[in-house]
C-alpha cells in the first residue's frame, strides 16, 4: 500500500506545484523577481524521500515545467534531477536533523537552478551578455526562495508524511525515547532483564 501511495502523492505534488507556480506565483513580482517553488519542492522531496525519489521527482517536475512553458524539453529536468538527487544523498549520508537544513538546501538548489539555466541557455546558443542584472536577479531569486523554503518544506512534509516509510526526525525521536534505533539493538534476554525505561 505504501509503495503505491508515495508515487501517487509525488505525481499529485509535481502537478500542483507546477500549476500553482505558473498560474499564480510567477505572476507576482517580489523585489523585481519571481519566486520559484518548483526547485524547492524537488529539494524537499529529496530530503524527505531519498535520492532515488528525489531524482525521479526532479525529472518529472522538470519535464512538466518544460512541457507547460513550451520550452526546450530536457533542460529543466536535467537541472532538477541533480537537485533532487543531491538533496536525497544529503539525507542518506548525513541524515540532517537541524531545522534550518531546508533553508540552506533551498538557497543552494535555487542558485544551482538559476546558474544552471543560464549556463544551459548559453550552451544552446542564446546570445546573452553576462550582465550585472542577470547576476543580481539570480541573487535576489535565491534570497526570495530562501525565505519561502521552510514553509514549502513543511507543506511537502505534511503531504508526504503519511506515505513515507521512514522520516529521519521520527526515527531520531524514537531512538531517544525508546533507548535504541531498532529492536535489534536491544539487549538479548540472555543478558538479563531490560531496564524499566526500555521495557515500558
Amino acid at each position, binding site marked *: 500500500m505504501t509503495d503505491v501511495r508515495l508515487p501517487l502523492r509525488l505525481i499529485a505534488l509535481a502537478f500542483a506545484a507546477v*500549476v500553482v*507556480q*505558473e*498560474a499564480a506565483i510567477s505572476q507576482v513580482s517580489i523585489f523585481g523577481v519571481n519566486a520559484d517553488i518548483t526547485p524547492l519542492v524537488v529539494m524537499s522531496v529529496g530530503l524527505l524521500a531519498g535520492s532515488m525519489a528525489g*531524482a525521479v521527482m526532479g525529472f518529472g517536475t522538470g519535464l512538466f515545467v518544460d*512541457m*507547460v512553458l513550451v520550452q*526546450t524539453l530536457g533542460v529543466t529536468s*536535467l537541472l532538477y534531477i541533480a537537485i533532487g538527487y543531491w538533496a536525497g544523498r544529503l539525507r542518506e549520508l548525513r541524515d540532517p536533523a537541524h531545522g534550518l537544513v531546508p533553508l540552506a538546501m533551498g538557497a543552494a538548489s535555487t542558485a544551482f537552478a538559476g546558474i544552471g539555466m543560464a549556463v544551459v541557455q548559453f550552451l544552446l546558443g542564446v546570445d546573452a551578455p553576462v550582465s550585472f542584472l542577470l547576476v543580481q536577479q539570480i541573487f535576489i531569486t535565491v534570497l526570495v526562495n530562501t525565505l519561502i523554503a521552510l514553509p514549502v518544506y513543511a507543506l511537502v512534509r505534511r503531504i508526504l508524511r503519511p506515505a513515507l516509510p521512514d522520516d529521519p526526525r521520527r526515527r531520531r525521536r524514537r531512538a531517544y525515547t525508546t533507548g535504541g534505533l531498532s529492536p535489534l539493538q536491544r539487549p538479548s534476554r540472555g543478558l538479563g532483564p531490560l531496564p524499566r525505561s526500555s521495557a515500558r
Partner: protein
Amino acid sequence: MYDKQVRRRRAVLALLVAVSLILLTAYFGESPGSPLHSVQRGIVEVLSPIQEGASKALKPFRDIAGWFSDTLHAKSERDQLRKEVQTYRAELAQAQSAETQNVQLTKEIGLDQSNSIQAYSPVGAHVISRDPTLWYATIEVDKGSDDGVHVDDPVMGDGGLVGKISTAGATYSIVTLITDHTFAVTAQVQDQYGDTGVLVAAVGNPNQLLLQYLPRRAPIQVGQQVVTAGFTSGPLESLYPPGIPIGQVSNASQANLQNNAEVQVNPVADLRHLDSVQILTHTHAGTQRAQLP
C-alpha cells in the same frame, strides 16, 4: 544487498540523465512540426483549461501579493510619473495641434482612415501562465486558433507591443515576448528624421531592448518614442503594422551610436504585470485596403 541498491540507484540516475539529454538533443534539432513538438502542444492543449481555472481561482491571492509589492514601489513611481506628466503635457499640446492638422490634410488628400488598432481585428485574451525563469521569454494566453489567432500575429498590451504568437493551439496561444532572444522587429524612432533600425532583446535583462543598425550620426535623444516601422518592400511586408508603440529611448550615448550603431530602449509595456493582451489577427488589413484604387 547494499551494492545492489547502489547499483540500482546509479542506474536510475544514469537513465534519467540520458533520457533528459536525448530529449534535449532531439527537441533542439527538430522543426516545430515534429512529433516531440506535437506531443508538447497536445499536453499544453489538455492542461490549458486547468491552468485557466487555476489562474482565475488564484487571482485573489495574486492580487493581494501584487498589492503589497506595488505599495512598496508606489512612492518612487509617483515621483517619476509626476515628472513624466509634466513632459507629456507639453507634448500633448504639440500633438493636439498636429492631430488637427493631420485630420485636415487627410481629408484634403482622401487617405484611408482605417489605420487604427480596430482595423486589425484585435482579440482580447487573458494571461494564464508565464515563464518564471530569468530569461522571461514567453506567456500563455487563453485564446487560440478557434478565436482566429494565427502564428506570428502581433500581440499588444499595456499600451505597447508585447510580442508575437509563436504557437497557436485551439484554445490557447504561446506569446514570445519582445524580450526573447529570437524576437526582432523593424522599429522607428519618432524624431524629425524617423531613423529606423532593428529592435532586439537584451537577453538576461527583461527591462531592456536594443535598437540596432541605426545611422551612426542619428540625432537620437533620451525619451524619444520608438514605434514599429511596418515596412513594405515589394511582396515582403512586416508582420507588425506601423505605429505600434514599443518603448522609449533610455540611453543614447554618442559613443555607443558611433561604435555599435545602437541605443537602449525601455519597453512601454510592463511585461511582468500583464493580465490581459490584445492579439491583432488581421495585421495586413490596412495595407490591403490602401492598395485598392
